[in-house]
């Protein structure tokens, strides 16, 4: 097992280097840098611009810039954010936890609702519930998240005024303790509902398909033949096996806890990492964007390895080699 993990980690190094080169090249393609975007500023002279470029290392040739950037990344130095005028690592740390709160809530509701819909659809295949659920699921995963978000905002915040228009806390308030938690929760309802609805569709289809697959197996017939209660058959014998392939899906979803949802966070003005990075791109804050993209890439690669390991742990039939 340890050997497997070590080998997978070593194998992922070239992938990471490759990804970093491609990502860096994409950013290097951009003709304008932060300094050019500041040239409209009357105080910015050509001299000052050249000085700034030298300061940020923007005047060096490409391979040299890549190496100095990459060696910085290895030391945990992602450069300075131009929007916030402080290290990218600190900016990410300041905002990522706001995204994390949102992400955890979404993941919780997504898996809860998807499992209920999926399991129930599977044990009552072709029932009215199954038909309606299938139709709803299709509609939900065909919606652009930003459109659903906008409709939610319009209906529940603008028209009905049930929930705040956006942000994380009521402006001008300084609640503490319980009142603060209630305030934040109120602000969370709409973004969490939007992203849960979008993602619940696909997942419930997986639950349904896996359950249907398992229910057909011989050992389920055996369990029924033994005279076990239907509840025991479904939840103890069927569900456990149906969950196996979902471990992979769950693990691969973990990076999204930290990635934030750029567009939805922006619509609901949620101060998460997604919104901040998206705002950064409009003023060409490339160090921030670059750092964020690399972070997500690393998390994705790690999640992939973790998925393989966990699957091996959970299912002894799979041999890790």
């Amino acid at each position, binding site marked *: 097992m340890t050997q497997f993990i070590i080998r997978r980690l070593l194998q992922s190094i070239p*992938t990471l280097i*490759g990804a970093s080169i491609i990502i860096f090249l994409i950013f290097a393609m*951009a003709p304008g840098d932060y300094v050019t975007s500041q040239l409209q500023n009357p105080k910015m002279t050509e001299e000052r611009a050249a000085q700034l470029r030298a300061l940020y290392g923007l005047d060096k040739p490409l391979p040299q810039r890549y190496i100095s950037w990459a060696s910085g990344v290895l030391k945990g130095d992602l450069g300075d954010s131009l929007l916030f005028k402080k290290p990218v690592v600190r900016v990410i740390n300041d905002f990522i936890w706001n995204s994390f709160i949102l992400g955890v809530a979404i993941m919780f509701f997504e898996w809860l609702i998807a499992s209920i819909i999926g399991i129930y659809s599977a044990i009552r295949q072709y029932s009215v519930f199954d038909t309606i659920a299938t139709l709803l699921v299709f509609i939900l995963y065909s919606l652009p998240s930003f*459109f659903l978000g906008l409709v939610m905002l319009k209906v529940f915040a603008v028209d009905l005024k049930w929930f705040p228009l956006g942000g994380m806390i009521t402006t001008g308030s300084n609640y503490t303790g319980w009142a603060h938690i209630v305030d934040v929760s109120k602000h969370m309802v709409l973004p969490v509902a939007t992203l849960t609805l979008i993602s619940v569709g696909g997942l419930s289809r997986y639950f349904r398909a896996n359950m249907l697959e398992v229910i057909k197996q011989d050992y389920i017939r055996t369990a029924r033949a033994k005279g076990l209660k239907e509840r025991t058959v479904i939840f103890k014998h069927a569900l456990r096996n149906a969950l196996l392939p979902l471990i992979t899906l769950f693990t691969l979803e973990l990076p999204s806890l930290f990635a934030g949802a*750029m*567009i939805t966070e922006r619509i609901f003005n949620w101060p998460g990492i997604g919104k901040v990075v998206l705002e950064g791109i409009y003023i*060409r804050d490339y160090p921030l964007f670059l750092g964020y993209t690399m972070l997500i*890439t690393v998390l994705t690669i790690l999640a992939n390895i973790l998925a393989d390991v966990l699957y091996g742990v959970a299912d002894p039939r799979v041999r890790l080699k």
Partner: protein
Amino acid sequence: MDQVNVNQPLDYKKKNNLKKAPSIWRDAFHRFLKNKYAILGLVILTFMFLFSFVGPYFSPYLDAKIDVSKGNQPPSAEHWLGTDNLGRDVLLRLMLAGRISLTIGIAATLIIVLIGGMLGSIAGYYGGWLDVIIMRLADIIYAMPGLPILIMLGAIMSDLKIPPPQRIYYVMFILGFISWVGLARLIRSQILSLKEQEFMLATEVLGLRDSKKIIKHLFPNVLPTVIVSATLGVAGAILSESALSFLGLGVIPPTPSWGYMLSAANNMIDFAKRPWLWIPPGVAIMLTVVAINFIGDALRDAFDPRQKI
């Protein structure tokens, strides 16, 4: 009784030698037609195409000049979906935007099929170092987050000051470039397993050329996968394009796309007071994508009734 004349070689080219077996295509077609969702999807999609490509010719506003005095009118008998801030008919704009969104969705998918299909078959068929390189590249692209890369490339297009009509082509290529990995992996794994089957050994024995083996014997077996993937891919491409254009980094005026029309909602007043500007394009995207997903799902069931997700 049939007698085989050993001295006379079998004529492979003569089609009627063998009675045609019921093809998997006909089977699949029948299963497809029995699926109610598939028919519903086809109806909606046909409607969206007619709406976008033929609809504008029925609009009285096709040659209308911009008239700001008629701007921001709510839906009425003359303007079913109201007018925008420049007095343009929203219904007509919705149709014209549909042309862009549908075209980009389909073209991006063709690019995905081309890149993914080619790289996937090469990797699967030839194996060796080609396989290693292609699959490594696939791993790398798979590890990179899609939306941020898409947004970054959109921002670069703006910096390079690419004129709006050409941006449409760039958007297609960008979408194709970042989403070919899934299809390439799928095709590679299928070809790897097909290669081991007896009919491929038979082509070897017959001494067929590589190109003939791939095109006539491997490709038809992979085609169902490609068709299903491509159909669902169009839905994904339309959604990605709309997200990018919504952020103002995809298709930009004067050519609208549904995503761009939705960006009207970024203006607080338009968002709260003039929902006719941004709700119709959202509904159009939803209907189109639902229809495509219905069709794609039905195609998957039709080609492979065992695998149901």
